């Protein structure tokens, strides 16, 4: 099994001496959905954001597509980012743009500013955007403004935007934390299906252990900036959960 993404000794300090990520080393396969679980503030989000360099790692290596992303700059970095789709907790759609414009913004790494400004996107991209809208169940919403949609619909647009990039890796930072339980399940199955359909490995940060067990092929448990569990859903015993979240009163 060849790794599509390999993180080696990743360290992040927002404040000097306080390690949010304390030497994380993980390899991710080219397929499947990995869930990263852990309490708030253990660095799940920081780990994901280091991978596409929305956050600058303090030290360590991030190998992806034959390059070390941790040390890329300028154009090289943008070219690496194009191959990594990201889905956000609060959707992060550009609210005043239409659904179609939001989807096409997934192609901005490939389209010149002048053409993007004039909305002269390649027809192939536009056709693909319509296909993806069908796939996520939002056919007919293309010209709606993003802020007119419900939370679940927005996240579907968020996923479609990420897949528009034709990414080689899909990251999702707590994609269901702002959604109700039913919509959460729908969004998670959409993430899994999109990953399978388009052959993209998916890494999802989440709080919800049950949801992780249900959808993930592999679960990584983080606590205090380190990996404390790495394996399948069946290995998540109460003892393991205690080591991830601490305490036990919440385990019933």
């Amino acid at each position: 099994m060849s790794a599509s993404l390999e993180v080696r000794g990743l360290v992040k300090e927002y404040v000097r001496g306080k390690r949010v990520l304390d030497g994380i080393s993980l390899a991710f396969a080219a397929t499947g959905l990995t869930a990263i679980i852990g309490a708030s503030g253990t660095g799940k989000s920081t780990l994901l954001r280091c991978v596409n360099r929305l956050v600058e790692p303090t030290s360590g290596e991030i190998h992806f597509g034959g390059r070390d992303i941790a040390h890329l700059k300028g154009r090289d970095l943008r070219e690496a980012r194009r191959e990594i789709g990201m889905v956000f907790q609060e959707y992060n759609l550009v609210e005043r743009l239409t659904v179609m414009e939001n989807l096409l913004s997934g192609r901005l790494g490939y389209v010149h500013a002048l053409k993007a400004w004039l909305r002269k996107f390649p027809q192939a991209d536009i056709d693909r955007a319509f296909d993806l809208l069908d796939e996520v169940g939002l056919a007919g919403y293309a010209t709606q403004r993003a802020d007119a949609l419900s939370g679940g619909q927005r996240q579907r647009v968020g996923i479609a935007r990420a897949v528009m990039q034709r990414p080689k890796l899909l990251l999702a930072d707590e994609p269901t934390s702002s959604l109700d339980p039913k919509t959460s399940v729908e969004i998670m199955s959409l993430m899994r299906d999109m990953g399978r359909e388009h052959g993209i490995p998916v890494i999802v940060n989440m709080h919800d252990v049950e949801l992780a067990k249900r959808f993930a092929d592999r679960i990584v448990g983080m606590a205090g900036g380190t990996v404390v569990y790495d394996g399948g859903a069946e290995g998540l015993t109460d003892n393991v959960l205690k080591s991830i979240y601490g305490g036990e009163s919440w385990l019933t």
Partner: protein
Amino acid sequence: MAVSTDTRRVAFRTNPWGRAGWLLLAAYVVYAAGRLDFTWDRFVLGLDSGAKFIGRMFPPEILQPESLAKGLMESLEIAILASFIGIVISLPIGLLAARNLMPAWATWPARAIIAAARSFHPVIVAIIFVKAVGFGAMAGIGALTVASVGFIGKLFAEAIEEISLKQVEAVRATGASFMNVILFGVMPQVFGRFIGFATYQLDSNLRNSTMVGIVGAGGIGGTLFSAFQRFDYEFVAAILLCIIAMIMVGEVLATWVRGVFVEKGRVEDE
């Protein structure tokens, strides 16, 4: 916290410094009015000459139609050109001045330009331009362009500083170039407000373009000023009425522009 058992509990704190401040202000107002002979008697004296002046303004009469038409046209041209050039210049400057997107080495010079453009009243800038480039519309356009850059640049920068960075982050994450991040992550969030600022500035430039002529910087102001100096008060009245009409047309125009660029429901945050 323990509840006080004192029967004279204080519900409203007194502010002795605040009171002293108000007293001081009142005293200064009385003092300044006395110094400047700002009295009722002086006001009554003024009313008398005011009545004579207004009497001579009626009926309004257009004594020099060509001069009036030329002045109005020139004012309109000055206002529109200055607004256009001002907007084009203030877009990049406002963007450079936004501290949430730009590093300090870019925001400082941009902010300095905006501050300089805002420090003087357009009349003072107009006088400077008249001295620099000579009498005429060129000076007026220059003066009002400076005013526009100051106003729109500052408000535009502030609007950008209030945007949601989450949307920007998402666009950055797609690998978009800096220009594309601006176009898709930043501009949609501020465009509606920007149109609001620009139309307001057009409105303001229309008003100011009737005034820069007084110092020789072109437009209807020059015609108005010479009518005053010749005591042609009926012509003054006619010019003033024309200016009012022009400002009103300008207001309608500005509203229309806002309607075209900003769809219904997009102005909710203005």
